[in-house]
């Protein structure tokens, strides 16, 4: 057991900054990051529809203090820009979410989705190739059959490692609205894809049909006041999933109850505090991300200013509420004007469900230790990314005298937002996406 729990939450240092570019295009903006279930692979998706997969180096015996670093393993174009001829609309190729399937053989499988289409990709290695065909040369040219006098058996010869990604399934034409999340079921046979108004259930083997299990579209679109913002399967119970809404509520549904899960079996919502009510109350209560804990007993939700941890057995209020950047509460009008109030931040659990992490502005991200109740603000920036350097906690000063290392609220850069983060399933390694840069931090090894 590492002793990093003393330094709360953890002291991280960056081995390197990967995938950075000084002048980036819009297409390079990272739109999702996800570790696979073993932590060996890290996938990122960007606005240009590309997926880049990193693989962790095997730890070397000679340098045990240097943990395995992540290097590029495979890059492929997952989604292309499309044109919907019926609506005369372009369909963005931006990758909204990536979810890994647990590994069952030598190949890796992941689901990636843009606004309309989910794809299952198989990533496999090839390090041998057959040589000695009878009917064609090693170059591939067809041999003249009349020149063949004897038969030989092709032999597998080693070759340079080649990693290839192939699209194995394409799940399309099931969503009228924009897909915001996908989630693989613990049964490893089905998954759900969620858009603003509907949740569809798919079988991984069947691409030409899906089941609609939640539909909140009103008969009259004029009555629409609430949309679905995210959905996730329970990590162990294959019949349970949760979805969050723009009104700050979470519904837990049991697929065994009915074919259409419009009736929730649990409804989580915290009553509004009348003291803080404003015209922006509803917008800031809109949930941008919902995540089950690894142990399946808790739910975490992220709204604009807070992260909340819910006990699945208690629906009327959250178990814990953490303020991410409460100093923005007095700036909501400006943030509404410049649209920052609509930013969708994600949140993530660590492997043991003891620490939660989420992003903020100015390339800050926050961690909260649920046990010690301590929290820290860290920054993902080039200046802080010298190898073996330790990330220094940052602080935002709200008013009054600003100390030397602090930054004032008005100096925050709202164009630098950390929306996507992910935590290694077992170890203290985190990946943080800051616009077009990916930062990977590991905890201090004693």
């Amino acid at each position, binding site marked *: 057991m590492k002793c990093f729990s003393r330094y709360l939450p953890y002291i991280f240092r960056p081995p390197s900054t990967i995938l950075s570019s000084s002048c980036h295009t819009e297409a390079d903006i990272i739109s999702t990051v996800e570790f696979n279930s073993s932590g060996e692979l890290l996938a990122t998706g960007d606005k240009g529809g590309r997926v880049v997969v990193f693989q962790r180096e095997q730890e070397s015996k000679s340098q045990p203090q240097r943990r395995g670093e992540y290097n590029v393993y495979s890059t492929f174009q997952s989604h292309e820009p499309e044109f919907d001829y019926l609506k005369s609309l372009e369909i963005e190729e931006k990758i909204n979410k990536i979810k890994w399937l647990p590994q069952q053989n030598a190949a890796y499988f992941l689901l990636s989705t843009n606004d309309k289409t989910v794809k299952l990709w198989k990533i496999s290695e090839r390090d041998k190739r057959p040589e000695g065909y009878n009917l064609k040369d090693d170059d591939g040219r067809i041999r003249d059959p009349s020149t063949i006098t004897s038969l030989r058996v092709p032999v597998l010869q080693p070759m340079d490692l080649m990693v290839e990604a192939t699209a194995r399934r394409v799940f399309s034409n099931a969503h009228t609205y924009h897909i915001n999340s996908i989630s693989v079921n613990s049964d490893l046979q089905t998954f759900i894809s969620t858009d603003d108004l509907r949740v569809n259930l798919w079988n991984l083997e069947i691409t030409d049909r899906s089941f609609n299990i939640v539909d909140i579209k009103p008969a009259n679109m004029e009555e629409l006041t609430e949309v679905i913002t995210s959905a996730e399967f329970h990590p162990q119970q294959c019949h349970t999933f949760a979805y969050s809404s723009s009104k700050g509520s979470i519904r837990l549904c049991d697929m065994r109850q009915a074919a259409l899960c419009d009736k929730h079996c649990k409804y989580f919502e915290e009553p509004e505090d009348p003291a803080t009510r404003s015209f922006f109350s509803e917008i800031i209560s809109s949930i941008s991300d919902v995540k089950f804990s690894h142990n399946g007993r808790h739910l975490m939700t992220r709204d604009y200013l807070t992260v909340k941890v819910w006990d699945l057995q208690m629906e009327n209020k959250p178990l814990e509420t953490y303020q991410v950047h409460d100093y923005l509460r007095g700036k909501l009008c400006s943030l509404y004007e410049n649209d920052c109030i609509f930013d969708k931040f994600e949140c993530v659990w660590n492997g043991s469900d003891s620490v939660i992490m989420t992003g903020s502005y100015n390339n800050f991200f926050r961690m909260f230790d649920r046990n010690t109740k301590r929290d820290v603000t860290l920054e993902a920036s080039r200046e802080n990314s010298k190898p073996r350097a330790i990330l220094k906690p940052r602080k935002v000063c709200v008013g009054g005298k600003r100390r030397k290392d602090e930054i004032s609220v*008005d100096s925050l850069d709202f164009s630098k937002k950390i929306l996507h983060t992910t935590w290694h399933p077992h170890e203290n390694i985190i990946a943080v996406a800051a616009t077009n840069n990916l930062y990977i931090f590991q905890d201090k090894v004693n």
Partner: protein
Amino acid sequence: MFPKGTKRKFLDSAEDAATATVAGEQGPASTRTPSPSYSLQRQSLLDMSLIKLQLCHMLVEPNLCRSVLIANTVRQIQEEMTQDGTWQIMTQALAAAQCPTDRLVATEVLCRQSDPAAAAAAGQSPKPYPLVGGLDRGYHSEEVVMEAGDAHKEALPTQSYLAGPFGMGPCWEEEQQQQEEEEEEDGGDEDGEESEGEDVDERPEVDSRPGEQVFGTFEIKQQPPPPPPPDPALEELFSDVDPSYYELDTVLTGMQSAPKMGPYDLLESLSSHGPQPLSPGASCRSDLNELDHIMEIIVGS
């Protein structure tokens, strides 16, 4: 993006004041009088939200979540303004400002709608008129109830008056709704004068209509009578042909095609209460032309 270091003290401190005011005033709605700075702040928030909605729909693919959140904010402001009584003042001022320029525009529109289906479709756009009326609380609500119930009866005398000069039988639906809108808007001017009948064709058409469309389509779940059930056949037509984004488009802007009215035109019509330029009306009239055209294609072919 938000410029680094820019101080937005006025708005933010006013926002704090707004928050405090809303929180502090818990008394009955009628006794609440908003402070001028709060009203100003609220008005600017309303204008900002409407601009955002407009811009939303100018996008090729509007973000539904964002649209819904902004629309809910507008509705919330609307509700509060209704409770304060300032909503009624604003709509009256709008209506008063609309009168002079609409006569010609409305006439042309009327003449163009020879197709009953087109009339019904166009009539469907201002469909939410009872909701607008419903916003006027107090003594207006009875008028609304009566109007909705006796809609046809009330319309007849006026319709026959109109049918003479224009001879547009199939247009009665449009006129009837226009009349009711007009009456509701001018309900504040005590008794409905008979000159209301004359004013029918100067329906507050499109200058205030987008405003009304945007406001009126957000259902206020209060006393007002439910809106007339949508024509199922037309709904089907729309649902088949028009994808959901167009539906939302229709809902929130009342226009089938991309709105041609710029955001600042809408802003002007809301805040300034000044005389309205003709151009917004003209541009929206061309939208109605398109709507007619689309309907003719759908229904006629």
